[in-house]
């Protein structure tokens, strides 16, 4: 093959994907590994990559321990109830006890954090959220990562993790290709910190045509965190826990600041409050322990995000839509109006464009809300990701195997969407997880765990052939037809993505079926995914850009398969409003107060499912 091979050898820490998790990892690794070789591979440009490329108007995970606002365990309690009990509380406590040092560091670096003029603390949007002018959030953390790293490879898409041929179940690096030059890149590394992203665009989006890019999570979040790790044989957890977002219609502008800071509220198409009418029925499904509106009213205990979605979905299905966000009151205050607009311009410009295009001025009109298609990720109000070790001083034996944030493959670490069971990490928590992973990775190397790694030339050549196969396939078959993209020998990445989205939507609980699925539907979904995998061997890419899309599709497909397996395994409806198992519509604590863990055997492709115990952080005398 004509593609040039570029080998980067003797790497100590390879950061695969440099969003907030990856930049945190690269920055911190330098402190613990002064002489270590730290390399970043990023499929876009590190200055504007990952979910925060566009900027953020809030940091949603900040304890304020320094100001006496919260303790780490308060945040664990919050994440637990929001996720209906299913979280890794060791990892959450660990993230929460470190996250404030990350946020204060951001301020020292120049990120404009708003201050509360009276208290001197950061301006609170809600109990956990602080407000920032975060247009340059990503360039700022990228600068930190670049200052620490020996080398940054922009535009290199990692397609596979390399495993050691000398010792079973140990990491050895990664391979990928440059989406501009087409060069083949081999990274031989003692450790890999997976900072790749969660998955948008695996369920059919509500928007059609051009608007298909206006997904809630970035369209470049291709589930590569999961695709890479599952293919390497890492154990995954809570992959069924997809998230559905209640957002401003079509533009998917965020609602956090609107609810929490601007004090806007929702009503149905008749102008009525509707949420509370759905609570009694929901209580029968999930139990009063998980939904106690009176207690929520009196204390800070939240009503879980999924249950609030359920009320909105049910109200619309009952024919009383659309749901409106009542903004007309708050927006009369010019300061609040400014906050409302800057909130979008800082992180979802498209919503501002849409309101300008449709003459929606929220001062004069209450905008519509909607519920999105599902997403699979691990840092917002959901915790899909890999099953990883916690810190030694917190984790029970089932959650600990030596190194913090290390996956079930030795030497493979992760942060952000890659780590399972840690919802509500958001940007600051993901960066913090990267720092934790980096320290642990350096310790792993210093302990001599990465000696004698072997990667054969044969393996490197095999992967090279596999990576470029879609381009070769295109060259061979394109001239069999006169013109166009209809060809009996192949599908292109867009055609494949459309197929994936349609089948996930219809069989795995997407928005067009009101998030409903059951065992039979999931079985059919799995069958179709299997057949699709055969067709993915016949994927065609006409250039390097399409080759990028081809590999993104393969990662999305693997993610989808794992999501479907997990959804089938958990025979209950744990998160009404995220998805429903029609054949098991109730929450079932007797059998399912557990975390789901899967492993796909890289040799056979078979999945093994298991239940892992769910530990909770409680007072010593409870």
């Amino acid at each position: 093959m004509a593609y040039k091979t570029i080998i980067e050898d003797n790497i100590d820490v390879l950061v695969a994907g440099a969003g907030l998790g990856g930049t945190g990892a690269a920055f911190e690794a330098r402190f613990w590994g002064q002489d270590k070789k730290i390399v970043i591979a990023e499929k876009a440009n590190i200055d504007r990559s990952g979910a925060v490329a566009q900027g953020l108007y809030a940091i949603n995970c900040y304890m304020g321990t320094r100001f006496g606002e919260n303790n780490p365990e308060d945040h664990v309690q919050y994440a637990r109830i929001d996720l209906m009990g299913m979280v890794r509380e060791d990892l959450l406590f660990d993230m929460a006890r470190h996250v404030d040092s990350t946020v204060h560091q951001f301020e020292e670096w120049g990120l404009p954090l708003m201050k509360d003029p009276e208290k001197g603390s950061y301006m609170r949007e809600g109990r956990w959220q602080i407000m920032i002018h975060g247009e340059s959030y990503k360039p700022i953390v990228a600068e930190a990562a670049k200052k620490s790293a020996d080398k940054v490879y922009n535009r290199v898409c990692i397609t596979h993790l390399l495993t050691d041929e000398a010792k079973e179940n140990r990491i050895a690096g990664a391979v990928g290709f440059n989406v501009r030059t087409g060069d083949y890149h081999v990274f031989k590394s003692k450790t890999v910190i997976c900072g790749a992203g969660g998955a948008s665009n695996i369920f059919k989006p509500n928007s059609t045509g051009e608007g298909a890019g206006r997904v809630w999570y970035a369209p470049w979040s291709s589930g590569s965190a999961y695709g890479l790790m599952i293919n390497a044989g890492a154990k995954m957890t809570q992959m069924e826990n997809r998230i559905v977002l209640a957002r401003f219609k079509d533009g998917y502008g965020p609602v956090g600041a609107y609810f929490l800071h601007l004090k806007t509220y929702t009503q149905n198409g008749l102008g009525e409050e509707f949420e509370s009418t759905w609570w009694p029925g929901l209580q029968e499904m999930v139990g009063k322990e998980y939904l106690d509106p009176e207690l929520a009213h009196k204390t800070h205990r939240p009503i879980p995000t999924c249950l609030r979605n359920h009320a909105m979905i049910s109200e619309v299905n009952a024919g009383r839509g659309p749901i409106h966000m009542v903004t007309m009151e708050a927006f009369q205050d010019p300061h609040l109006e400014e906050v409302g607009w800057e909130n979008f311009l800082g992180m979802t410009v498209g919503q501002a464009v849409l309101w300008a295009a449709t003459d929606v001025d929220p001062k004069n009109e209450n905008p519509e809300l909607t519920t999105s298609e599902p997403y699979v990720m691990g840092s917002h109000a959901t915790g899909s990701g890999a099953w990883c070790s916690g810190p030694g001083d917190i984790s029970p034996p089932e959650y600990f195997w030596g190194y913090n944030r290390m996956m079930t493959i030795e030497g493979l670490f992760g942060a952000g969407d890659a780590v399972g069971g840690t919802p509500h990490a958001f940007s600051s928590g993901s960066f913090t997880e990267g720092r934790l992973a980096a320290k642990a990775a350096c310790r792993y190397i210093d302990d001599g765990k990465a000696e004698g790694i072997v990667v054969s030339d044969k393996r490197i050549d095999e992967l090279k052939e596999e990576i470029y196969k879609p381009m070769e396939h295109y060259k061979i078959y394109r001239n069999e037809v006169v013109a166009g993209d209809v060809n009996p020998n192949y599908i292109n990445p867009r055609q494949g993505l459309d197929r994936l989205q349609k089948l996930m939507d219809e069989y795995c609980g997407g928005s067009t079926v009101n998030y409903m699925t059951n065992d039979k539907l999931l079985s059919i979904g799995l069958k179709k995914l299997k057949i699709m995998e055969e067709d993915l061997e016949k994927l065609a890419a006409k250039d390097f850009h399409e080759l990028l899309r081809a590999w993104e599709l393969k990662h999305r497909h693997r993610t989808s398969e794992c999501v479907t397996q997990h959804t089938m395994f958990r025979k209950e409806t744990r998160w009404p409003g995220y998805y429903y198992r029609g054949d098991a519509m109730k929450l079932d604590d007797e059998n399912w107060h557990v975390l789901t863990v899967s492993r796909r055997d890289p040799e056979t492709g078979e999945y093994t499912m298991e239940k892992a115990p769910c530990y909770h952080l409680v007072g010593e005398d409870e």
Partner: protein
Amino acid sequence: MPTFVYMTRCDGCGHCVDICPSDIMHIDTTYRRAYNLEPNMCWECYSCVKACPQNAIDVRGYADFAPLGHSVRVDRDEDKGTIAWKVKFRNGTEKNFLSPITTKPWGTAIPKLKDLAGPTQEQRDSELLYNEPKYIRFDDGGLHTLESNGLTMKQGVYY
């Protein structure tokens, strides 16, 4: 909203190609200017718009739900450390916004950790990260632990 590039303003410098997170800004081989080759993978993140030295890139709302006749323009000024937005509605209404993007001169405030003294063995053996325990406590104590906060991890159903 998908981006598009004005023919008469673009000089083909490629800044947008370099920055686009979605890899959809490419140089057209005939006209030697940039264009958006995959609008349905555009997140309207404005990274390319902000990066364009010629102000040649703009955004037209997604055809499937956004009517024509609007504009959202941006000027990101690294020297001043500000970002200015002008929102024009279809009906002619205009709104302007200005925000800071940084509080420090670029490239100056972030430490180069290689130049610092390395960690001590005690730091390595602890659970602390770089620069901690600064900022993580209300009082002078160290890192929060199960013991310090009177907690334990238990199996079972807790809400």
